[in-house]
Structure formats: structure tokens, C-alpha cells
């Protein structure tokens, strides 16, 4: 598989040469991924808590909707966001289309349902009595929610990892609202698509390798954190 070799070589070369161009792609890629993950966490965890740890009418529908949200093709999200941000669209005046911010917005629509849906399942596994115990010690609803999320940490962190993965991998949306503009909105995934379209499989995979390497690094940290609780012994 000469291509694989070529890919590895290219990836190394890209990193070592490190053209401004290249670093810009890296920067934009993770800026967008991290921003949209963080916003996704801020929006998703509360939603997840509501769906997983409380009872209200239409809760199941909300859960089903969220799970469906996990399945919306990025292209569709991209289209919708694009129509919003288009000069003809309601938010056109912002002139945000084909900017990094537009990409972050679109990606947030991808990360949020992911994080919400999986957080819901995680917090639902925390025994209700534990929450009563917290209440009985004077925990306010907020503090109780915080505790539950801390207790469900393993699952919640996995949810975040999945959300991060979804935004890192999703290309359709950023392609659509970012435009893959060289030096501006080009990210690793769009570069990968473009290269493979050009038949530059080696380069395409090279970008893939770089993306995966960085992601692996980040996941290493996450896993380390996620399981740091294990020093407390098996429960």
C-alpha cells in the first residue's frame, strides 16, 4: 500500500515544513471543534440532565428528538445554517457566511444533541435516593444537578468525547457554511475531502493522520481524567 507510506511521509513533511497555510488549517480546525464542543457542553448537559434525571410531559418525545438530532446529516445542518446566514436569509445582515464563526455555529448544532442525548442516559443511571440524600443535606436543585453530573462523570465525559468526535468528523456543515476557503475557513476535514476529490489520496490521508493524531492526544487526556476516579477503587 504505497499510498499509506506516502500518507505517513506527507503528514510528517507537512508538520515539519509547517507552512503558515498548514498551521492555519490546524488552528481553524480545532478552534471550531473546541468552541462548538464547549458550547455543546453548556447547552447539552443541562438538557441531558432534564431528560435523564427529571420527569415532565413530552420528555420521551424530547429524548427521541435528541436521538434523531444525533442522526441529522451535517450537510443538512449546513444547508439550514447557510440559509439562515445567507444575505437573503434572516441573519444575512451579520455577514457571517463563509467565516469561522459560521462554522462554529453549524458545528454546535451537531455537538449539542449528541452531548444532550448521551448525558441523559448517563445521569439516568444515578440512583434517585442518592439525590434525595444530597437534598437532605441541603443541596439546592442546582447543587443537586451538579452532584448528579459529577457522579455520572464517566458517562458524561464519554458524551463529551462523542460530541467532540462528531464535530471533528463532520465535514458537510463546515464545507457548506465555511466554503473551504484557503487560508481562511479551510479545515482538515474539508482539505481531506478536497484532496481525495483531486485523487491526491496520499495527501488526503496525511491530513487524516494528523487529525487523528491530535484527536488521540486530546482523548488521551480525556480518558486519563475520566478514569482518574478509578484510584478511588472499584465500586
Amino acid at each position, binding site marked *: 500500500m504505497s499510498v499509506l507510506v506516502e500518507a505517513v511521509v506527507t503528514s510528517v513533511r507537512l508538520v515539519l515544513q509547517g507552512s503558515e497555510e498548514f498551521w492555519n488549517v490546524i488552528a481553524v480546525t480545532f478552534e471550531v471543534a473546541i468552541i462548538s464542543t464547549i458550547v455543546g457542553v453548556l447547552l447539552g448537559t443541562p438538557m441531558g440532565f432534564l431528560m435523564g434525571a427529571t420527569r415532565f410531559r413530552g420528555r420521551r418525545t424530547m429524548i427521541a428528538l435528541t436521538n434523531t438530532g444525533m442522526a441529522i446529516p451535517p450537510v443538512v445542518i449546513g444547508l439550514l445554517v447557510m440559509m439562515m446566514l445567507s444575505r437573503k436569509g434572516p441573519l444575512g445582515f451579520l455577514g457571517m457566511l463563509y467565516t469561522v464563526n459560521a462554522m462554529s455555529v453549524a458545528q454546535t448544532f451537531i455537538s449539542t444533541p449528541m452531548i444532550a442525548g448521551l448525558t441523559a442516559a448517563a445521569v439516568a443511571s444515578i440512583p434517585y435516593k442518592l439525590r434525595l*440524600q444530597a437534598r437532605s443535606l441541603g443541596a439546592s436543585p442546582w447543587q443537586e444537578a451538579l452532584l448528579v453530573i459529577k457522579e455520572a462523570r464517566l458517562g458524561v465525559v464519554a458524551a463529551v468525547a462523542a460530541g467532540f468526535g462528531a464535530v471533528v468528523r463532520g465535514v458537510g456543515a463546515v464545507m457548506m457554511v465555511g466554503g473551504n476557503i484557503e487560508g481562511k475557513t479551510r479545515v482538515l476535514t474539508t482539505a481531506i475531502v478536497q484532496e481525495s476529490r483531486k485523487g491526491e489520496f496520499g495527501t488526503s490521508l496525511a491530513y487524516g493522520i494528523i487529525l487523528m493524531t491530535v484527536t488521540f492526544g486530546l482523548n488521551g487526556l480525556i480518558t486519563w481524567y475520566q478514569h482518574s476516579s478509578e484510584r478511588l*477503587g472499584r465500586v
Partner: protein
Amino acid sequence: MSRPQSGTGLPLRAEGVRKEYDKRVVLDVDHVEIESGQTLALLGPSGSGKSTLLSILGLLEPPTAGQVYLDGKPVSTKDTAARAQMAAAFQSPYLFKGTVADNVAYGLKLRRMPVAGRREAVAEALERVGLGGWESRSALTLSGGEAHRVALARALVLRPRVLLLDEPLSSLDPLIKMQMMQDFARIIREETMTTLYVTHDQSEAMAVGDVMVILREGKAVARGHVDDVMGLPPDEWTACFIGSEPPFRGVVIESDEGLTGIDVGGPIVWATGTLAPGTRVLVGIRPEDVLLFESGVEIPTTTARNQMAGTVTAMQLLGVMYHVVVDIDGVRLASRVSRASVREMQLERGSEVQVIFKATAVRVKPQEDGRDS
């Protein structure tokens, strides 16, 4: 105990609380109240609704019907402020991930106590439950009893106005149990905490409880001062539950120099105290106050005023001791007899014995008409 008016300053009171789970009524208590600084011991068989009542009084579960009052003001599960004056330790210790210290400090953190003071308070609370210096141990790998004690410390450390304990000592050995019971009794008095103490162990109830409520299938079948309830159980079931025989009715026939003779229909029972002859009374004697001897033995009445002949009608081994029921011309008395004595006296159903108990051991209660009779 007569029912108090609404709005009195009783720290904790509930009226007409009922709890149903899918139409099944598991709790239905028309009123329950604890006076300031007092401890209410809540007894009852498994499944009788003790924990349910506790979580309703703790504003943790809303009752299906009824109202809880804190200092006379109606409160609900929504009142975080009201709940902040309480602290509970559940039947099974729901410890949070983290260290023992994290757990004990939780409530203090919520109350924004400065770290220094917190550390101190935690250390003291742990000391109190016999886990001094365990701060940094993981809370997840504790033994059953250790976990329970941490849960207990977690509630005690808050020095709440209202303390709710659900079988706090059930998983501990007698040694530390006793020690902690006395410790409770002390701090509860010191801090004048108003306490609900759920337990299924009478000796615990008697040691820490001022008043006592016995639940049966969700209903309060007995309530009152601990000694009253234990000495004069209102009915057959309660008596059986607290391991004695139901009290019997009698009439005072004479009473002088602090001694009262009561005709219980057959033998005359001597009790301390003075009562007008003719008074109808209820008479109860705790099994541990009743001694059995071979018939024909002479015991000076100075020691044990009451001496009568009876027949053993039932025997049951309760671990260390036997529970022996004796019939004295129709009056049933229970007695605790050691295995050794049973062996030596060759006790069995039908054995003739001499029943001996002291005047001081006899509980007498002038009989108001109504539910007691």
C-alpha cells in the same frame, strides 16, 4: 399524648400524612409530632412505612395527602430553606464518589463553611463515629458498617435543628453501637436537636428515645413515652412486637405506705405508689423483671413483694435468653430466662414454677375509658 393545636411551636409536626404507591396505601398516620430537643423513636416491622414517614417529614417525598409543619408553618418539598435546617442519614448509606472527607464535608461546603473550620468539623465528626483519621480513604471501598458511620457523620457534622436517622446503627456491633448510642443521647441533648430516630431495635429505642411511635402497616398503633409504651403496650400485637405480654386489667383493693395491692382477677399484684381503692388500672410487667424459680422455694417478701405460682404455657429461644410465658390463674406473664436456668430447672411447657417480681417492676396506669381498654 393528646393532639396539639395547629400552629404550636413544635419544631416538627405532620398531620394526616398518607402515602400511596399506585393505589397501595403504605403510610397513613393521622398525626405525629416531635417536641423541641426531643427524640422520637420510630419502631415498626419491616415494610411498615418508617422510611417513608422519615422522607416525608424530611421534605424529601411529597405525601399523597397531609401536611408537614416546621415550627408551626406548613412546609413542602419545595422549601429548600426549611430542608436546610434538617439533615438525614438514610437506611443505606448513599455515599458520593470521593474521599470520606469529601462526603462528610459535603453539607458544610453547601453551607459555605470556610475550609479550615470545615476540616476541623469533619475530623471531629469522624472521631465521633469512631473513624478518626479516615479523611483521605475512598468512600467507595468502605465496609458496610464504616459506610453507615460515614453517612451518619455526614449528617451529624451539620448540627441540624432537625435530625433524621434511619436505622443508623443497624449494621454495627453492640460494642460501638452502645458507645455511639450514648454519644447520640448526649449530643442530641447538648445541641438540642429534634430527632426522628427510626430503628427496629427496642433497646436502641429505649436508650435514645424520649417518646416513641410504633407503626404497623402504615398506621401508628402505639405512641407515647418510651417507658409507657414498652411497659404497657396498648394491644396484643404491640406487646408481641416489643417482646412482652399485653398488660392486664385490675382493680386497686388496698393502698398504703406507698404500696398498692391490685386484684388482677386471681392473684394480687403489689405495685409501688398510691391509688384510691376501686380504681380500675392497667398493669404491665417487663419480662426482664420477672424471675422464675422452682416451686416451693422460699424468697423473703422484702426482696420481691410479688410471689405467685404459675404454669409455663410457652417457651421460645431468643438467642441468649428464652422467652417464657407463664399463666397464673388466667393472667399471662412473660419472663426472660437464661439458657442455663432453663437447663437446670428443666423448664418446658407445663412446668410448675414460682413467679417472682418486685413491686417496683410493676407499671400501673389508671385506666381512662376508651381505646386502651
